[in-house]
């Protein structure tokens, strides 16, 4: 180990962490990423509904994947009716 980690006396009880869970980035173990073809996309928003991680955002015009949270599960690609999402290797 390169870095010395704090011991039991220095860490908070029960492993409590100071931040709210919204501040953790949990998408770093994704092995595939969704790539969407914007031309083919019909904005039906089925992917937006199905994403189990709420990692797809819709601002009324554009669809975006939030790579801080996307787990690469591929549900969006599977559900897209026009098959415009490809799952590419990370």
């Amino acid at each position: 180990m390169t870095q010395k980690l704090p011991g039991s006396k220095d860490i908070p009880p029960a492993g409590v962490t100071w931040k709210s869970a919204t501040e953790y980035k949990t998408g770093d173990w994704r092995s595939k990423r969704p790539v969407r073809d914007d031309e083919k996309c019909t904005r039906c928003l089925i992917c937006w509904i199905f994403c189990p991680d709420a990692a797809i955002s819709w601002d009324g015009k554009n669809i975006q994947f939030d790579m801080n949270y996307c787990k690469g599960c591929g549900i969006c690609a599977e559900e897209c009716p026009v098959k415009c999402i490809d799952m590419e290797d990370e």
Partner: protein
Amino acid sequence: MKPMPAKQILMGINGDEAVAYAAKHALVDVCAAYPITPQTIIVEKFAEFVANGEVETEFVRVESEHSALSACLGASAAGARTFTASAANGIELMHEVIFLTSSIRQPVVMAVADRSPSGPINIHGDQTVSLAQRDTGWIMIYCENSQEAYDSTLQAFRIGEHPDVQLPVMTMLDGFVLTHTLENVYLLKDADAHKFVGRRQPMMITIDGKQVPLKLDPKTPITIGPLQLFDYYMESKLQHSEAMEKARPVVTQINNEWAQLTGRKYGDGYLQPFKVTDADAVILTTGSSAGTARFVTRQLRAQGKKVGLLKLRTFRPFPDKKIAKLLADVPVVGIFERTHTTGSLGGPLFNEVRSALYDLDTRPTILGYYGGLGGRDVTPDHFRTIYKELLKIKDTGKSPRNPIKYITVRK
């Protein structure tokens, strides 16, 4: 001058009802529970108190015990004083959450109406299930009678919520023998009970030099129960152990405070020795069996036999040093346990007591007895048989090759 104990109300109730009264007196904020024999009366009675408006508790009806303790854990993390009760297969189903509750340091109080686990299917009393929770990191108190069940349940909130401790507490009462048997029980008056138990204060922790409560609060967002892998898991376990060590004096302190208030005291909170000092043979046991064993001990003493009883009340934290001190000069010790372990030398009580005595210069001869399993009656004859055997070993100096025995088993 000894302070006068508070005036109390004598009621004819069973052990389950006694626990329900204790939960009512503890002003529990949230109770989530699922009924299971022989615990059912606890939640039934408590639900009645809630329905009648006698206590302001959020009663959460859940579909299983796993959910019951999960709901309690969540409520407790939000700062609520939380209570639940279960038994046997219900405890087995919540086993996962039992570990979580203690590792997240939530002082939930749970009454366990001790009943044998299924396998073979059975609904009667023994202590197999509760003793199987020995590694879950909870404080564990075994009750001898319904009075002690009431007393210990109220004490449990004070012990678990103590700022140095912050751990969940299980109080065990033997299925049917205590849960369903009418007994005269002294209950505190509401005001006295409320004063004793107080209100739950959340543990304070330091964040960036600032003190914040260890509870889910949008004003001071924290994450409770995060993933702790190989990098922090062991450090948290060490912390947990230290909290359990800090609970040691607290158990005694609360037991003493209770004695001042009610006039009832359970030894030092851990052990209640009865005629142990000069004894040739001592039986160590726990729960309602201790009452039966005391009866026999008194009888045999009247006949001039030097026998003694050591009742173990608090199993976690385990009073190993106290046991070693009390049994140091006793020649023969028999441990009676209402649980069963296969493929090991004796059950958990036998093992832990025997290990506690290992460092003594001269160790007693120690025998382990399995009995009262699956609700088989624990009778005075059990203890007469055990004492007879122990005294014979003392007299002849010959100990059996196999120290593990069954009481009343047909071969």
